[in-house]
């Protein structure tokens, strides 16, 4: 009897115990996972009230969501109309702007649930929208895992190694299992943003995940859950009960918060998922030096999607375009309207670190009202092959090389070909053409030797003789630098110009050094200037000396009336740049052995000359504006009586200001003669807000004595509009 009673009691206890355990298993799953922190906190309070201890860990999951778009639409109104139509059908349609295509799209929801995505796709098809676009985006989602058992002393703690001794984060509890690093998803039905809200409202309990079923797939990035375990921890606990942070990185580190129950998130390497399981636990006292691993903290999940920007390739094609048209308001202008277009294409290819190749071609089109034809010219751009090592660089082919440091008039910049087809309307750096040459540069530390040889001379690029920017203008009968004269007018209009293009361009060498606090360079050149000088043919001159007022007879004396000359000259000079009082000071000077000038008997001789530029560049108010002021001087060293000006002194400069977050730019250039009335001022206002396009309005004003630059082009005062772009 006693034995039977004892057996009944034991059986009862066993049944009770088993029942209790079963009840606990059913009613208290070891995990409850919430999408909402408040829900998780409420759950903890709830289970604690029931005598069960619980705590929260957070787990950030990398998930893939698919955004469903329809479109594109070329204007917002059309997109909005379709969006409203979809909204009437109960679909979450929002008009968005696609920056890559500059078109409008309608976003029809964001989905992590494939079934839901397919359902909406089908519905769109039924509504007649077949122009669907799907974009996938990876993001992180925080889950709040409530663990329903007493927290045990941590088994694996580590100081965050290295860089701080007073880290607010005292301890990191980790389990160093590794997880492959592919993107994976929560195996329970994926919850989109919309669904999340619904489920939270309807269920009020969050997402429950059992140890067996909860295949939580986490992005294969390193992941450490850091949990505050002790009250001594310096981690701040805010009033919302937040007590954990998550750090994610490139590799997975499995996190185990509890030791003995071993409810942890583990990686299933085959499925590339993290599975919540009971088996894993961190090895005791295992320390992970997190500084040895790649880690990642994402603080903002709503940042801009990664743009498709790739590192530049070895092929680098480029196209520069410009179109402008304007009016010449002066009544004596040769033309009332003037149009100009430029296309400059180039391809650069670097097939190894040593070898590089570039080819380029340009086409210029200009049209002025008084000339019925358009002036179209094709020209080569930079076409060269280049070989480089650490010490030197060798370039063979047509190139643009600009020596010196001054703008507009650099005394030592005599190795480039000037482009005078637009006068000085383009900026100085855009007024050069490629020059066939052999170039060898040798580098040593911060110094450089630069040697050039131009086997074929190339004169400056000039417009047609009847062009408004002609240096010797047949329409007017004028020559740049000389006052208008009736005899000269006939000689120009009726005479013939012989252009000298043969021979070598010369050679030059330049040494430059970046020294402590200043940069300097020295140069020596034996070259021919590209800018032309016009000399009367000797028979014509002799005839004019006999009969100064009979230009027609003089012209008849020779086949060529004028000779365009480019005499050889030695140029020796240098430049220096330094910073003082927040201003970049630059000085450049040069001596030329042979500069042509015309004597009173109309003969042309070469004279020594000195040219110098002293400039200061600074940023007014330490802002976005830049101002460069230059004092320019030129002196012909001779006592001979000359028709040419012996001394020229100028003040010129440039101002550039950027406004409205660099969407507008104002450029201003000016040149003011100090010893002769000579003025030029240009102003260009450009809209830069639609890259890579620039739309500009510009005005160029010329004024001065007839012998000056401003005076010579006085009637070319121009107001124009234009567009330029670089692609």
């Amino acid at each position, binding site marked *: 009897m006693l034995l039977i009673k004892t057996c009944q009691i034991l059986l009862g206890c066993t049944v009770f115990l088993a029942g209790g355990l079963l009840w606990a298993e059913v009613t208290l799953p070891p995990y409850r996972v919430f999408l909402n922190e408040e829900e998780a906190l409420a759950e903890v309070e709830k289970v604690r009230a029931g005598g069960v201890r619980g705590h929260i860990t957070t787990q950030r999951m990398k998930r893939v969501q698919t955004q469903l778009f329809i479109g594109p639409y070329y204007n917002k109104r059309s997109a909005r109309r379709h969006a409203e139509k979809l909204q009437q059908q109960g679909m979450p349609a929002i008009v968005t702007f696609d*920056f890559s295509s*500059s078109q409008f799209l309608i976003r029809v929801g964001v989905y992590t649930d494939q079934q839901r995505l397919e359902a909406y796709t089908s519905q769109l098809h039924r509504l007649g929208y077949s122009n669907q676009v799907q974009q996938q985006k990876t993001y992180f989602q925080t889950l709040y895992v409530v663990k329903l058992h007493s927290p045990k002393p941590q088994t694996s703690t580590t100081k965050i190694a290295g*860089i*701080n001794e*007073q*880290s*607010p*984060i005292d301890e990191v509890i980790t389990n160093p299992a590794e997880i492959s690093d592919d993107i994976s998803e929560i195996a329970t039905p994926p919850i989109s943003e919309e669904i999340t809200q619904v489920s939270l409202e309807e269920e009020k309990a969050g997402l429950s995940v059992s140890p067996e079923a909860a295949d939580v797939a986490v992005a294969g990035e390193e992941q450490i859950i850091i949990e505050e375990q002790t009250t001594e921890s310096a*981690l*701040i606990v*805010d009033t919302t009960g937040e007590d954990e*942070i*998550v750090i994610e990185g490139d590799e997975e580190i499995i996190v185990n918060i509890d030791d003995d129950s071993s409810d942890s998130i583990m990686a299933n390497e085959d499925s590339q998922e993290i599975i919540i399981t009971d088996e894993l636990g961190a090895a005791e006292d295992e320390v992970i030096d*997190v*500084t*040895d*691993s*790649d*880690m*990642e*903290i*994402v*603080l*903002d999940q709503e*940042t*801009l999607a*990664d*743009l498709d*920007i*790739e*590192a*530049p390739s070895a092929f680098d094609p*480029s196209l*520069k375009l410009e179109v402008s048209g304007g009016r010449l308001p002066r009544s004596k202008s040769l033309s009332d309207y003037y149009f100009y277009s430029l296309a400059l294409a180039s391809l*650069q290819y*670097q097939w190894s670190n040593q070898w*590089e190749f570039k080819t380029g071609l340009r086409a210029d089109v200009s049209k002025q009202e008084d000339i019925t034809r358009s002036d179209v010219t094709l020209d080569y751009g930079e076409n060269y092959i280049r070989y*480089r090592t650490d010490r030197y*660089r060798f370039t063979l082919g047509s190139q643009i090389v600009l020596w010196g440091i001054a703008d507009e008039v650099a005394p030592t910049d005599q190795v480039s070909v000037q482009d005078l087809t637009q006068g000085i309307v383009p900026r100085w750096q*855009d007024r050069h053409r490629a020059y066939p040459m052999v170039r060898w540069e040798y*580098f040593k530390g*911060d110094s*450089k030797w630069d040697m050039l040889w131009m086997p074929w001379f190339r004169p400056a690029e000039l417009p047609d003789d009847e062009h408004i920017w002609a240096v010797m203008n047949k329409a007017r009968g004028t020559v740049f630098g000389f006052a208008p004269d009736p005899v000269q007018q006939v000689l120009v209009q009726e005479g013939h110009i012989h252009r000298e293009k043969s021979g070598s361009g010369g050679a030059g060498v330049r040494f430059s050094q970046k020294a402590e*606090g*200043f940069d300097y360079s020295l140069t020596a050149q034996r070259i021919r200037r590209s800018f032309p000088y016009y000399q009367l043919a000797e028979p014509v001159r002799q005839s004019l000396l006999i009969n100064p007022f009979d230009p027609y007879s003089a012209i008849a004396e020779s086949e060529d009336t004028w000779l365009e000359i480019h005499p050889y000259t030695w140029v020796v000079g240098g430049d220096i740049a330094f*910073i003082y009082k*927040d*201003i*970049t000071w630059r000085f450049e000077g040069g001596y030329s052995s042979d500069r042509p000038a015309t004597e009173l008997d109309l003969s042309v001789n070469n004279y020594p000359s000195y040219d110098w530029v002293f400039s200061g560049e600074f*940023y007014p*108010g*330490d802002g*976005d504006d830049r101002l460069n002021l230059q004092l320019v001087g030129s002196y012909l060293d001779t006592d001979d009586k000359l028709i040419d000006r012996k001394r020229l002194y100028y003040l010129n400069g440039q101002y550039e200001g*950027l406004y409205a*977050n*660099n*969407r507008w730019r104002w450029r201003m250039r000016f040149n003011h003669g100090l010893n002769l009335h000579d003025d030029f001022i240009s102003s260009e206002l450009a809209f830069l*807000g639609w*890259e890579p396009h620039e739309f500009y309005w510009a005005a160029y004003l010329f004024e001065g004595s007839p012998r000056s630059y401003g005076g010579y082009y006085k009637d070319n005062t121009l107001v124009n509009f234009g567009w330029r772009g*670089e692609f």
Partner: protein
Amino acid sequence: MKFISCLALLVCTVTTSVVYGASSNDALQLAKQLYDRPDGKDRASFGYMVLTEAGHKPRVRALYSYGKDKSYYDIWSLIRFTSPKDIEGTGLLTRDEKNTDSQQWVFLPALKRVRKIASSRKGGRFVGSDLFYEDLQNRIYTKDNHKILGKEVINKLPTIILESIPKNARDSVYSKRLSWIHRPSLTALRIDYYQGGSQPIKRLIVNKLAKKQGYWTIMESVVKDLKSGHSTMMRIKNIAYDQNLPDSLFTTQTLEDPAKEVAFRPSSITKK
């Protein structure tokens, strides 16, 4: 109303200072730690900036950036733009040196010249972004007076608020900077920039931090002009540390020859 706001700010500031009880020495130490944060002997990265403003199309600038620590004070850097086309090839070479003023050169492809520029320039906006030239310079911590104002949690990460005021007002374009420093990574997760007033004019927020080759790296951040709303997002696509970048990379020769620089680019940062 404004007075109340100022007062509230003042009270909060005083309170947090008292609560934290940090000495100025602690602040200086923290600033020093921030300056000394490990970032390798050299570093090379490829990334881009997105300039955004409400109602306007964003503008994107892609660039390579290289840096090398020659010594504790001497830090060299080179920035090269690769897009858009109108600034492609533009480079900026900076040599921060202890004994002399910083030296800076710019290469403008259209000009085909290297130009020496005043490194004292601080206030200009760098290629139209919300970064001032000063933000690109390596400002040593000893130029500022530092004070710890308290602690705050930013995006669940604990931070220490560090106030930095230039010792010489002319030395900086900012009158004050407040930095929310995440101690484990020694990174400012947020910086408020002041120019005289009680309200910041600009704010930097770090969006993404990552440990690359053992060095904490800001992978994405946003600088916002709080007045105009214009913002600049900077994102690093690839970065490589300790690649033994040669000194010759940080010369004017390389600056004026973008193709030469290709040889120095670690392959890991040119990948897609």
